[in-house]
């Protein structure tokens, strides 16, 4: 009896706290979701309260829209590369900063100057995406005034009459953007992984050292398994960033809402915005939004399932 009563009392108690946030969530998150689903079946122009119901037409058109499918492919590419590169780099740096130093008398510590590195690596994270876009706009600038071009011309690797048009090269543009995201993200995940590493008891490392494990072995056999929770969450978060990419693509590349040259850097969000705000096809854009939502949901479920492992308690 008592068990049921306490559990019931607990439910009421928790519910009491949840009413307000839940109401807000329903109004500002769930309700727009439902509306979006609704609009995705209409030919709404986005500038008027009147529209007609057109069934699944938006979705069938979407499946034939080469620009959208190309954008989807780019998102998938980013989805693979953004988390992989960012996490690998961040893990490497975090390990070096925390446990990569030569073992001295004090046991495990980071490489020399690790406190300084930690701060420096975090710098990019404090910049907003809009500033990043301006900054890297200057790096990738397509004439000799650009940082990269200026450097390469100085070295004699690039002909000043034909500088590399980084963001106007179909084969380079996506990778240039990828680099910006990775540069921006590594610092944050480095700090995240550092924090996780610091919570790993030193004696585990010392035990590993005593057993004669080198840096690589320590990392693979000790650090990584103990950090798996953080890596998993990071992967989901970075995956979501890769599905978005709107700010960087729309500000750094050519075309209305970016995506150029000739759709080679297009991501779903830019196609969505162009259709929503520029072409007056808001119903169609809502269908894209729904597709994005479904894909992101699948992504997160798959990531969390695939990376589920036995937890090591410590």
């Amino acid at each position, binding site marked *: 009896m008592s068990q049921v009563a306490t559990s019931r009392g607990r439910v009421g108690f928790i519910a009491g706290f949840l009413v307000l946030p839940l109401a807000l969530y329903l109004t500002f*998150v769930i*309700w*727009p*979701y439902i*509306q*979006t689903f609704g*609009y995705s079946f209409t030919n*709404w*122009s*986005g*500038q*008027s*309260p*009147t529209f007609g119901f057109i069934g699944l037409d938006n979705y069938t058109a979407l499946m034939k829209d080469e620009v959208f499918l190309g954008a989807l492919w780019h998102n998938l590419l980013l989805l693979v590369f953004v988390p992989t590169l960012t996490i690998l780099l961040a893990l490497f740096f975090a390990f070096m900063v925390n446990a990569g130093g030569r073992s001295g008398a004090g046991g495990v510590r980071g490489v020399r100057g690790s406190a300084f590195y930690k701060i420096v690596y975090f710098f990019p994270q404090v910049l907003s995406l809009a500033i990043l876009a301006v900054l890297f*706009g200057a790096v*990738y*600038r*397509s*004439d*000799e*005034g*650009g940082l990269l071009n200026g450097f390469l011309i100085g070295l004699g690797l690039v002909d000043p*009459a*034909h*500088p590399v*048009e*980084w*963001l*106007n090269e179909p084969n380079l543009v996506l990778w240039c953007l990828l680099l910006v995201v990775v540069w921006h993200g590594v610092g944050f995940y480095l700090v995240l992984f550092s924090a996780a590493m610091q919570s790993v008891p030193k004696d585990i490392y010392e035990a590993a050292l005593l057993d004669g494990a080198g840096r690589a072995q320590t990392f693979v056999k000790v650090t990584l398994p103990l950090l798996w*929770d953080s890596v998993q*969450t990071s992967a*989901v*978060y970075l995956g*979501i960033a890769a599905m978005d990419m709107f700010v960087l693509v729309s500000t750094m590349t*050519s*075309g*209305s809402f970016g995506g*150029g*040259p*000739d*759709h080679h850097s297009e991501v779903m*969000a830019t196609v*969505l915005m*162009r259709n*929503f*705000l*520029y*072409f*007056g096809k*808001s119903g169609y*854009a*809502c269908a894209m*939004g729904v597709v*994005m*939502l479904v894909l*992101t*949901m699948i*992504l*997160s479920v798959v990531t*969390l399932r695939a990376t589920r492992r036995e937890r090591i308690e410590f």
Partner: protein
Amino acid sequence: MGSTGEGLGRRDLIKRSAALGLITVPTMSFLSACASGGEDGSTKGPDKAAVTKENPFGVAKGGKLDVVVFKGGFGDDYAKAWEAAFDKKWGTTSSHLGTQEITGKLQTRFNGGTPPDVVDDSGAQKIKLDVLAKAGQLADLAPVLDAPSLDDPSKKVRDTLIAGTVEQGMQGGKFVALNYVYTVFGLWYSGKLFKEKGWTAPKTWDEFLDVCKKAKDAGLGGLAHQGKYPYYINVVIMDLIAKKGGLEAMKAIDNLEPNAFEGNAAALAAVEAVYEVVEKDLLMPGTNGLTHTESQTAWNQYKAAFIPSGSWLENEQLKQTPDDFDMQFLPVPLLADSKLPFEAIRAGAGEPFIVPEKAANKAGGLEFVRSMLSREWSTLFAQQANSLTVVKDGVDPKVKLRPGTQSAVTALKAAGDNTFNYLYPDWYSAMDTEIQDASNELMAKRIQPKEWIKRAQAAVDKAAKDPNAKNNHRS
């Protein structure tokens, strides 16, 4: 309590819900953008005064007027000056908003049925006029055209405007947008640079290429363009087509004809001419990837001989232009056997002012537009924004113009009736974008002129399939 029997550990639960939250938040920012406000419910009954000859729309004294203007190259001081004048005459209280984010500020208001009374719908974030018109959000401005002019009540407003103004503001057969600023389009060069180097302004495309070559020999670029925005190079391509093929070629494109580009010799010649600049390596190095400010500033630093633009260029580059630069306008040079003369230029009204159909003070909005077309307000604009308006002879001769604007006025005079203007960018946003994408590829040497023609025609054919295309037609 304990770890036994619980399917989901507490930490797991927190972690997963956090992960879910992470997904929902960024996706949401897009999805919630889709959500419109409530339906258009109450239609406000604005106070109306009696309609008289002096007050053709029945503006109520002492009402409110809500004005939103794009605060771009022209600033928004001119609008403040107008509002002050309007308030003085009608005893109204006007509210002013100058912004770059027209869509951001106004989309919800249009959807919610509470738009402002007058809007200057311009800039990169304008709400596309074709979209607004299709949604029935724009008031018919024909009554303004037929109202008596403030300067001379015996004349209708319609007769005080530069030819083409009305045509430019048509959407689906209705006059809904007053494009207020009169702009000429073409190439620009520095009079100082040309004098120094002993070059003469070219009249034919061959002479143009020749100057570009000389520029290259002198260590600078021939043609600069605003590569990140292919809109600008399209000015050159489209002007060449219109001049070579005549007005018929231009109308064929606006009217989405099946042979607008494909099989049109003038179009192919024009695209090939532009491509020659690329092939002969006469572009300013790197120009394909530069923004408009970057390339225009490079041009101001004498790094290229020519740049395409509209006559807002001088105002836009005011700070970057050296004092002795002597900015000069040049009509796009002629190809052999062109139907239009060299002096012919693309000229047209831009900066569309609209009155929303559901404006609370629609009468006030219409009266405001009528006042804009008076000589007094037109002069105010010229003083504040350093540009011309669509009012015929609308500027006091006292206003002294800068060299670039002066050269544009001279070119306009020389052109006489030989002005033309494309309407498709206002009518068909998607087609315009697709042609721009093709031009971007052409300038980067990734496609050939024939492929450009194919893609441009495909864009035209796609636009022609839109059922709304039937409402737009020019003769």
